[in-house]
């Protein structure tokens, strides 16, 4: 029998339905893989019993002749930003250590309702703030990939959904949830050679997901291929009356709608994404991607998104501004950590609790956000950034007049070594340069693996689509996937 952990979501689902194996066998295989991969530090909490319970329910339903649920037999990983009832939920921060919600996030509940089981809560950058998974209170996540240069440098899986990326690449789970505020699904997916899609803002409910930047946060799936992303996204999406920004629209049948035929599609190539200092290998992969699109029947058009260079600065004003307010609730009064020094008054308690509870990157962003919202600076920063955001959205609007989808690299580099960029926050922020514009405009965007660089590390291509055109994005991703034939995987060392 094949190793069940090598199966995709579709493979697990279909194999379970066909009776090739039981759901319990699949859950046990992944539980074993998770238990054996501590070196990657991908999980903050392991929940083998949850995966087994869902598997047993699926097996019992099948024995009783019931119609199988969409994800019956499929165990998945849950980014530890989603509140899970009865299971510690930390956002990888000390300030929430030990916090066990009495409620289940909408997205995770939808996945459980679809029959999925949970292998555990996945590590991430603290409060999803980071691009390398080095800001977690629970330690760095290690990528399963290593450079083929003889060195053994531990590499970043990207961030903030680094635990999700690492776990999928290492076959610890077939799919996982991610969240994407400025690229937190797409960049880690690119770094570890998997697929990930951030849907249109509002497709997935934010209810029960620890907030970073409300106007940007969007959940989405990460998985080994495009089909799995479509299956997962269908289960995660849908209107939620508990989220005022949720889209009241039916969920399309994305999996059934998958087609790699790009005939009649116009693919825009934004010239502003050719940035200085971008490695030639990434430039070459982008060119390769253009050829693949052409081969799939698409027409290639050069487009201009003139305000692209302002996206990153605008993002690093808007996101910290919202974060500084969203994180005010972690005050030690009602839940989570509380530091109460001898003789402390209320203000002292706030200061001590937040000083001890938040990591450096979180503090940095709270300070930036507080600063840009302050009286006298608000117009110069926040208002200005919102104007830039509007201009960026307008750039995309204009592009859609001449093209249907955009093709770009996902990140300006391959995965870097842990510690390499930690001392320089600005260099770290530059990682998001290609992913942030779509976040600011709320557009669906996905990363699919395109190939390996000279050091043997994965590189990703990004497809950006019109609002609500997840189908177009997935289809273009599928066209790339079929032509790239990406089958490389990290050699097991853990």
């Amino acid at each position, binding site marked *: 029998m094949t190793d069940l952990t090598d199966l995709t979501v579709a493979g697990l689902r279909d194999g379970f339905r066909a009776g090739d194996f039981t759901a319990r066998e699949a859950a046990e295989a992944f539980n074993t893989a998770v238990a054996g991969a501590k070196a990657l530090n991908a999980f903050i909490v392991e929940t083998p019993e949850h995966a087994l319970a869902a598997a047993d329910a699926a097996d019992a339903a099948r024995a009783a002749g019931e119609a199988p649920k969409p994800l019956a037999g499929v165990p998945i990983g849950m980014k530890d930003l989603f509140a899970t009832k009865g299971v510690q939920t930390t956002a990888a921060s000390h300030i929430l250590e030990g*916090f066990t919600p009495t409620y289940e996030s909408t997205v995770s509940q939808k996945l459980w309702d679809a029959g999925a089981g949970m292998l555990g809560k996945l590590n991430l950058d603290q409060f999803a703030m980071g691009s390398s998974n080095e800001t977690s209170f629970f330690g760095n996540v290690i990528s399963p990939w290593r450079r083929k240069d003889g060195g053994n440098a531990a590499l970043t899986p990207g961030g903030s959904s680094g635990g999700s990326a690492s776990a999928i690449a290492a076959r610890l789970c077939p799919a996982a949830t991610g969240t994407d505020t400025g690229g937190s699904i797409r960049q880690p997916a690119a770094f570890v050679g998997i697929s990930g899609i951030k849907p249109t803002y509002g497709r997935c409910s*934010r209810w029960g997901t620890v907030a970073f930047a409300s106007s940007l946060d969007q959940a989405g799936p990460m998985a080994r291929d495009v089909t799995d992303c479509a299956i997962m996204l269908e289960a995660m999406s849908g209107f939620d009356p508990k989220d005022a920004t949720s889209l009241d629209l039916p969920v399309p049948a994305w999996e059934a709608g998958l087609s790699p035929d790009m005939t009649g599609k116009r693919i825009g190539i934004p010239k502003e994404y050719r940035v200085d200092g971008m490695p030639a290998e990434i430039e070459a992969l982008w060119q390769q991607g253009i050829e693949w699109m052409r081969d799939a029947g698409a027409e290639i058009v050069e487009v201009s998104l003139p305000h692209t260079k302002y996206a990153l600065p605008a993002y690093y004003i808007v996101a910290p501004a919202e974060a500084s*307010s969203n994180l005010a*609730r972690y005050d030690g009064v009602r839940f989570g950590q509380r530091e109460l020094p001898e003789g402390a008054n209320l203000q002292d308690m706030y200061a001590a609790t937040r000083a001890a509870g938040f990591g450096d990157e979180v503090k940095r962003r709270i300070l930036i956000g507080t600063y840009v919202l302050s*009286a006298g600076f*608000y117009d110069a920063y926040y208002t200005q950034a919102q104007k830039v955001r509007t201009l960026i959205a307008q750039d995309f609007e204009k592009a859609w007049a001449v093209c249907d989808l955009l093709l770009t690299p996902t990140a300006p580099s391959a995965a870097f070594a842990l510690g390499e960029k930690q001392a320089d926050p600005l260099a770290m922020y530059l990682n998001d340069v290609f992913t942030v514009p779509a976040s600011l405009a709320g557009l669906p965007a996905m990363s699919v693996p395109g190939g390996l660089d000279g050091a043997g590390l994965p590189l990703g291509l990004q497809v950006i689509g019109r609002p609500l055109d997840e189908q177009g994005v997935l289809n273009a991703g599928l066209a790339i996937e079929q032509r790239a034939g990406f089958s490389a995987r990290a050699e097991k060392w853990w």
Partner: protein
Amino acid sequence: MSEYRIHGATGDWEVVIGLEVHAQVTSKAKLFSGAATAFGAEPNTQVSLVDAAMPGMLPVPNRECIRQAVRTGMAIDAAINKWSRFDRKNYFYADLPQGYQISQLYHPLVGEGRIEIALDDKNPDAGTKAIGVERIHVEQDAGKLMHDQHPTRSYVDLNRSGVALMEIVSKPDMRSPAEAGAYVRKLRTILRYVGSCDGNMEEGSMRADVNVSVRKPGDAFGTRTETKNVNSVRFVMQTIEYEAQRQVDVLESGGTIVQETRLFDPDKGVTRSMRSKEDAHDYRYFPDPDLLPLELDDAFLEECRASLPELPDAKRARYEGELGLSPYNAAVLTAEGETARWFEALLDAAGSTVTAKAAANWVISDLFGALNRIGKDIEASPVTPAQGGELLRLIADGTISNTLGKQVFEIMLETGEGAEAIVEARGLKQTSDTGAIEAEIAKVLAANADKVADYRGGKDKLFGFFVGQTMKAMAGKANPGVVNDLLKKALDQ
């Protein structure tokens, strides 16, 4: 009304007043969560995950709260903004779980409106004055800290956390404590008519931030102070009196007024500095990214308008015009929606034989007198409008006299019985039986032959004596009109 002036050593000073009234929206649920809003519930029993700001919780606007604020705006002739937005006001406090209050700074729901106040409630001829309303916005209330539960700790009750408030901001249009008092009372009346706030100041459903400055008449506005959370009409007026005098004293002794937040001490009747502008919070307002802009469609606005009751000013004008009531009576009967509702139910029950004037007089003198005596509100009146109507009908058709009416009313109050039943059971029915009355008149005249002679000799005033004697003989049940007629006939023959 004479102009209100503070007489200082350097001359007269004018007071300039603006009020920010916080009114709790009448709604079963909070502004952004489904939690209940009952007053007086056990601490922390009216709290949802959203109100406690648990991780990942999101606000969803409550349509009914928005509707009530819109209706309130319409009731003060205000512009309703079809596009408005919620902003976050950021500050840390233990009674504020989110670390911010969701309010509306930049784009409020309701724009400019106006409220007409009577310059003297006792004298309808004194005229009215329009007080401008700058805006009404909706926002969340905070929880409450309890310092009296433990010697060294404070407790937090989040029952009020997230309750919907309307902040009704006046223009600095008031010039005396009396005007400010009239404004708060009139606003309260309107809110209660509309049903958007119960106006209960004791329970904290309505409280005011009082902005006061002073200036020499004709000068530009002076620097103002803001006294927070004043919770009765009397305290609002006291705050203004104290604060205006304090400011005049400061200015006349060469000092300057500091723009600051103050607190009113109701025990001593004074205000005290809470914090100055220098250490004021920087609230870092910005649009709440959890909420989309609030967009109202025409159908919603139409429903809001159609659901408005007749408002106090319109009602008062109708009482004067259509019903022919005196301005004073019209003002008294429309001052509270409950009173007007009771009065109108009374008119319906009484029927066409009872004039509105008679009904108004009866409510204001007899009913109010009785309610005052037994310490009950009109809503809790032991006599219903239907019962009152029955009583007035009996008086109007001559079945009982006014005097008997008062007695019957007393019995109604005590026993709860209907007027007709009382009159029937106790034989109080007034008689117009001319035969019986004539027989008694004959006896009275025979027994008082000397007075009859005096009367006929020109002592007209004795007529009242004969009426009294006859009524006494009839045990009060004779129709006074008939007695008059028959006596006149008997004496003048």
